[in-house]
């Protein structure tokens, strides 16, 4: 599985395939998954709840690939959780995380480049309050540590947290169940 994943991602990342037809839909799909995953995580995971609690009411953020690539928009709702809005922001988001190119989003969302490394490599622009952006990065990291298999998560994170198998399965399970529930019931 691990080798297969690496092979496929490697194929997609060849220079000649920079505009591969699969990249855009892959990034769009992953952004959708992350958006919905964050929504579910903010409802069930205590750590993410704590971070979201510190964001202002009505706080809105998006993540997008410049100049007109895939995007997802989230908002802090009245219940204090994150709501997945979709791919169109109804107003200028308070924080915008912008990949400079679709390919850079692909590198991160295919776990070939971690989030912190992407920041260090100048792949991502942050427009808005940095303190809020840091909270969002921590939410993303926490979610990734719970829902991704460890061999994938270690590529995305600077440090994989100390999680027992029980914690991992319980945390990830809760998020996946809530995700399914949200998808079915809205």
């Amino acid at each position, binding site marked *: 599985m691990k080798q297969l994943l690496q092979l496929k991602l490697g194929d997609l990342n060849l220079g000649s395939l920079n505009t591969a037809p699969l990249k855009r839909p892959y990034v769009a799909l992953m952004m959708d998954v992350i958006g919905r995953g964050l929504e579910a995580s903010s409802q069930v995971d205590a750590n993410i709840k704590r971070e979201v609690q510190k964001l202002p009411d009505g706080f809105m953020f998006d993540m997008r690939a410049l100049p007109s690539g895939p995007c997802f928009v989230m908002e802090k709702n009245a219940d204090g959780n994150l709501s997945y809005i979709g791919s169109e922001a109804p107003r200028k988001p308070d924080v915008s995380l912008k990949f400079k190119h679709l390919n850079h989003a692909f590198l991160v969302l295919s776990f070939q480049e971690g989030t*912190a*490394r992407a*920041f*260090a*490599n100048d792949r991502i622009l942050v*427009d808005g309050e940095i*303190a809020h952006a840091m*909270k969002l990065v921590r939410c993303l990291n926490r979610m990734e540590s719970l829902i991704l298999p460890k061999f994938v998560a270690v590529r995305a994170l600077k440090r994989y947290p100390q999680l027992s198998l029980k914690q991992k399965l319980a945390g990830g399970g809760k998020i996946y169940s809530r995700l399914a529930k949200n998808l079915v019931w809205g």
Partner: protein
Amino acid sequence: MTKSYYEFFCPVKIVAGNAALEHIPHELRTLAAARPMIITDKGVRGAGLIDHVLGAFAESGMDVVEIYDDVPPDSSTTVVTQIAKLYRDSGCDSIIAVGGGSVIDTSKGVNILVSEDGEDLTAFSGVGVLTKPLKPFFVVPTTAGTGSEVTLVAVIADPEKGVKLPFTSYFLLPNAAVLDPRMTLTLPAHITAMTAMDAMTHAVEAFTGMGKNPISDAYAVSAIKKISENLMQVLNTPDDADARLELAQASTMAGIAFSNSMVGLVHSLGHSLGALCHLPHGLCMNLFLPYVLEYNLAERGDVIGELLLPLAGAEVYARTPAADRGRAAINTLREIRDELYRRCKLPRSLSETGKVSRDQIQKLAEMALDDGSIIFNPVEVDLDDAISVLEKAW
């Protein structure tokens, strides 16, 4: 440890050395400017440093048209608007900032307003809002530490909203940084020490952080060597112009390094401590530097070990086993701090500041986690980690 991609950018002309100030009129002319305004503060003017700049214009066929000398320690939008009006009323066409971080940031704000013909500075806050070159802008640093003369950011307080506005644009970079030893010659010992350790931290974090790259490394290593070799010399002989110039150059080089590689946990903790306890930035850097390096040592020991060469010299480096160099580099920094404490009482721990209470540690750690520089620290930091470093720094 290299990275697979990096960016490096520094278009600032460095005008450095003996009689550097006298080059300003010529440099202005090359940019088609002839009516400069000086922006400075009372301390700089009181120390007679503006006289050096004005003297440089004698026999140059050019005059300084206006001087504003009341920049406060924390730059604000109100002051920026006031200076911009003075600039326009006097028909100026260029800006010379003479001072430290606040004067330079204020001048960057003024340059935005006068170049964009705007009244409301807040409209230009954020990343990449500016889209065209600004008026000719020179910086003459009067401390050797901040590196603001080569950075593309400015932070200016909005007193009405009670927030600090960040401005980030390549157009904020000065056209020239003028390093003249006369401008730092009278800097008191404790400020010399504090600002030098600020520059040292810029260089060390640039070299050990996630954003390090081959070009920023070269600047960082040279900066560390210059500071190690000249700081005590300047404290021993404050009027040693050559050693003063070495520190000024080191500060600029460290500024170039960190603005292209970013900084890490020392700055995250230092920004929080500065904001919460109102301690000077350089003091905070000096305080946290070894503790953060110790935190990073296990994962970054090889990179930290490379710093032993510029910190302690070739002989020490050669006789220290490779595996011990990281620890030895940290010990060398500790020795420098001990010497600075002995000479200037520059605090080495939170308790030595006398201005921090132990119950503020939790808050400091929480604030540090929200600081943008933490993402560039080579080792992940969570709340418990930050608290642990702060406890060690107590």
